[in-house]
């Protein structure tokens, strides 16, 4: 655990220093992909237990709307409080469904989560007070009581998002390696045996779903702070599909791989959009196919292979 924490700190320091040198567009891209990466990290958390949620848009939107509303209606502007509000709101929304979802597996889990996210999408589209399909804008947050000057707004948000992402993923790593976290892997292999050994599969699955919701909610809150705008699209099935793609691309072995995968997806989308305006979807689709074909266990398997070779 100490080793994990030390590594987290080292990565964070490197990222914060690197951010000072990076061009603005890259900074924003990393900010967004770290926020999105948190949502995918939640899916990875569930993937370890063998289920994949196709409806993380639900908690992503819940977190985003909560942060934006708390900022606009209650006048709370502190970024940390808003992120916490996003995570909290997502947990509140997801918790009632957790015991129910804990019974589902495979494609049914995927589809039920998808249906839930689409119900939220429908409700948001209808809510004219929340701007309906157009959504609404949110003011720039403050940080620890200071308002952020224009010139530094990009870096400040980057630093905030990266810090939260590193902290939460370090926590996730610790959880993954804990006894409770390892049970999930056992469930993935064979849940009946886990039951016979005396662990409650449903309790683990329900807890993982709620933890994933928290990660998704924080991700949504951070994304809306960076974007300055929220709309029902946050809860649409294509949004959820991209989170799943990032988790699959990352695999469930490495936490860092989730963020790397998230960044890779944003880079591919951004460059294909700029250089093939008429066929960017084709390029993105082919990229997805190639990755799924040639990296069956995700980017994480690459990471692990290298580290194993380095330290046999």
């Amino acid at each position: 655990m100490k080793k994990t924490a030390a590594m987290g700190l080292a990565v964070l320091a490197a990222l914060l220093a690197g951010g000072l040198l990076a061009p603005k567009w890259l900074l924003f891209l990393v900010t967004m992909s770290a926020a999105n990466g948190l949502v995918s990290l939640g899916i990875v958390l569930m993937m370890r237990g063998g289920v994949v949620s196709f409806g993380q848009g639900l908690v992503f939107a819940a977190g985003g709307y909560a942060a934006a509303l708390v900022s606009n209606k209650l006048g709370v502007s502190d970024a940390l409080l808003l992120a916490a509000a996003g995570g909290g709101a997502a947990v509140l929304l997801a918790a009632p469904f957790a015991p129910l979802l804990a019974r589902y597996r495979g494609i049914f889990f995927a589809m039920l989560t998808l249906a839930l996210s689409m119900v939220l999408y429908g409700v948001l589209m209808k809510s004219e007070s929340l701007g309906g399909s157009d959504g609404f804008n949110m003011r720039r947050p403050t940080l620890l009581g200071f308002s952020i000057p224009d010139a530094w707004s990009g870096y400040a948000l980057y630093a905030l998002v990266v810090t939260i992402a590193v902290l939460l993923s370090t926590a996730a790593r610790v959880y993954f390696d804990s006894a409770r976290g390892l049970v999930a892997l056992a469930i993935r292999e064979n849940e009946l045996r886990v039951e016979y050994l005396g662990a409650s599969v449903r309790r683990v699955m329900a807890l993982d779903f709620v933890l994933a919701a928290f990660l998704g909610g924080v991700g949504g809150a951070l994304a809306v702070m960076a974007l300055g705008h929220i709309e029902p699209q946050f809860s649409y099935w294509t949004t959820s599909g991209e989170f799943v793609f990032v988790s699959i691309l990352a695999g469930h072995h490495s936490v860092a791989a989730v963020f790397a995968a998230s960044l890779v997806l944003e880079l591919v989308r951004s460059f294909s959009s700029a250089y093939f305006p008429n066929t960017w979807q084709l390029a993105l689709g082919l990229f997805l196919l190639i990755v799924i074909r040639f990296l069956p266990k995700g980017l994480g398997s690459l990471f692990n292979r290298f580290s194993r070779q380095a330290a046999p």
Partner: protein
Amino acid sequence: MNTALTILADGVAYASWLFIVALGLTLVFGVLKILNVAHGSFYAVGAYAAATFVAWFATWGFAPWLSLIALLLGSVAVAALLAPLTERGLLRVFYGRDEVLLVLVTYALFLVLEDLMKLVWGVNPYFVTAPYGLFGNVQIGGQSYVGYDLALVAVAITCGLGVWWGLNRTRAGKVVLAVIHSAEIAASMGVNVGRVYTFAFMFGIFLAALGGALTAPMISVQPGVSVAVVIVSFAVVIIGGLGSIEGAAIGALIVGMARSLAVHTWPPAELFSIYAAMAVVLIFRPEGLFQRVKARRI
């Protein structure tokens, strides 16, 4: 009385259209265990292909009723060319991988097809309205309906019965059922599972393309046709139970009637009535209305 009749007629007409598409989706899932996100794209390709064939028929000066044949030919062409290419060239690579992973593969395929259609047919709209007027109008409960819309009901019933009969009453159908039940055991009994997969996929895609081709006369065929179809046919299949033909029929009727009821009595409910129905069914009957629960393997 008239209102009830109208709600029923509208619901059934919509359900028929939906059923043709959803039947293909459920069939592909039943046999190949692939939830095909790109199903809507094949629907759109079917519509484009139909537009192309109808235009050819028109330049050759064929009689207007032959345009119905052109619609059919369009969907056959999609099933005969594009479907085997997709199944053999792409999906086959991923068999045996996780179901969710295959959903992502078809999502990627959806993105690819979206741009490919644009490259082939451009963005300008195609109109193939000739078949739409062929059946005249029909009066039901004080409403005038386009005969073509009601003809779709007959097509849907034919498709449903045909597939049911084919699966349950023919030798080839029994082989497909054997593969649905267990591909491994079927293979060990000497069934060429690969071929069954290809044909099942072709037939599923044929139904998607047919749905698109039959819709082409009443819409403007242009980019974006595929997006709306896929999510409603998903809902139908989920409600009915993945892989179930009866389920797809009941699911389509539930969705069609729910929508018709909403539009006639409380329009604002339309948008999420479908998803709400889907969530409710999933909560109480997780495997859908018509699917047997699988045994858990120890």
